[in-house]
């Protein structure tokens, strides 16, 4: 389980501290899913960096019980253009010191699962955005994570590719029992993928509302009335926040 207790983050500028996040508290159950949404510049990415351990909070604490293996997908995928698709996917295992055979088998298996068979020797620059995203997902999954952090993983994709990949992420979360935490600026994505939705305020980011969205978790949810209802509600909350911002 992931517990965030009044976590804060500030960057120092000389003697002044520029607050990015203030008093953030929420929790994510094991095998649960959580979407973090908020206006742009509200510190969503910083929050994900805190959760993934890439940054340390300057106030409060973040507790992850059981020290689970984690996988992270950064904005713009974070793939290495000088490594082939196969090398990118296998990198986490190589870093852990896995032998060549094991890396090779795992890479083949993931290429198959992600529909990338035949692209192992390609470079990321030769693939479409949707395929690159699947490579990033495969790389994060290679180490069998128990918790998966994603920072706007689908923001640069076209609508149809987006939906297909949302389904893929849903499938990963459900079938592999991976706790997922997703940062997004898309209302539909948050409602489709987050059983719990954390809405952040404008900068400095605070928790504006925590929306329980227990029906998320099946592919057909998109076609239900409740889905539209949740989207509308979330939009209203965010709209209120934007209205305060500027006329």
């Amino acid at each position, binding site marked *: 389980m992931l517990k965030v207790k009044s976590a804060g983050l500030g960057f120092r500028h000389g003697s002044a501290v520029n607050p990015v996040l203030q008093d953030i508290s929420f929790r994510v159950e094991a095998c649960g899913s959580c979407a973090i949404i908020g206006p742009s510049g509200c510190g969503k990415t910083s929050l994900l*960096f805190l959760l*993934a351990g*890439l940054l340390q909070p300057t106030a409060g604490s973040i507790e992850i019980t059981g020290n689970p293996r*984690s*996988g*992270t997908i*950064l*904005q*713009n995928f*974070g*793939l*290495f*253009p*000088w*490594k082939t698709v196969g090398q990118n996917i296998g*990198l*986490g295992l190589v*870093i*852990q010191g896995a032998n060549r055979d094991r890396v090779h088998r795992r890479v083949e298996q993931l290429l198959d699962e992600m529909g990338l068979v035949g692209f192992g020797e*390609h*470079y990321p*620059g*030769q693939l479409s955005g949707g395929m690159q995203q699947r490579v990033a997902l495969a790389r994060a999954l290679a*180490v069998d994570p128990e918790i998966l*952090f994603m920072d706007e993983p689908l923001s640069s994709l076209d609508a149809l590719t987006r939906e297909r990949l949302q389904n893929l992420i849903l499938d990963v979360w459900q079938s592999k029992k991976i706790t997922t935490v997703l940062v997004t600026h898309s209302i539909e994505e948050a409602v489709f993928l987050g059983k719990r939705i954390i809405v952040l305020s404008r900068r400095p980011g605070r928790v504006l509302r925590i929306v329980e969205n227990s029906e998320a978790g099946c592919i057909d949810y998109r076609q239900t009335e409740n889905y539209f209802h949740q989207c509308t509600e979330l939009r209203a909350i965010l709209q209120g926040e934007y209205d305060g911002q500027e006329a």
Partner: protein
Amino acid sequence: MGRKRDILFAALILLVLWEISALLLKSMALPEPWVVLLDTFGKLADGSLLDDLAISSSRALLGILLALFTAVPLGLAIGAEKSLGKRLSPFIYLLYPVPHVVLLPLIIICFGIGNFSKIFLIALIVFFQILVTTRDAAKNIHRNYFSAMQTLGASKWQIYRHVILPASVPKILTAMRISIGTAVAILFFVESFATTTGLGYIIMDSWGRADYVGLYTGIICMAALGFSLYLLLDRIERRICAWTQTG
């Protein structure tokens, strides 16, 4: 291949221009190209130039390699480690613009007048060209790549191995390309005195004897040496830098 044809065509045009200049100038100091080429092929066929060609090639190549294997690790470290860069960059600023050729007397006192002094001077000059470029390349690697490595749990050595070095390789190769031209120029300088071998000596000796055809034969061989190094570098680049050609 189209590129090969283009190079041959360019060579042909240069030869024609040379021929026209020689005919117009009617000077001993500019013999006609076919005379020079006949002399070159003759000397290569009877083996009288092969020793000089071999020794010049090895001096240039060893100088470049010595510079490469010292400048690249140092440049990567200075570029990637902020504190090291802060401490060492002022020295580079001061030492880089010094015309290192003037250190020749000192080098000769230290290392004698043998081959090592010649190789050392070539290496010294080329060293700074590669060092500065490598440092700048390592310094400007996008943060995302480091974050991605951090999420995979990489050690410092692994970050060098998988990110800093491969990301810098294209610029290192560009530096090498510039270095080849410099190395050949310095090669001529160090071979123009205190030696009786090498293409530089052939050129100076022919000049002294007013053997202008021999002089141009030396020049042609030196150009061919530089050109061969370029071709070698192209081949290496295609092998280790395939990803830059994928867009």
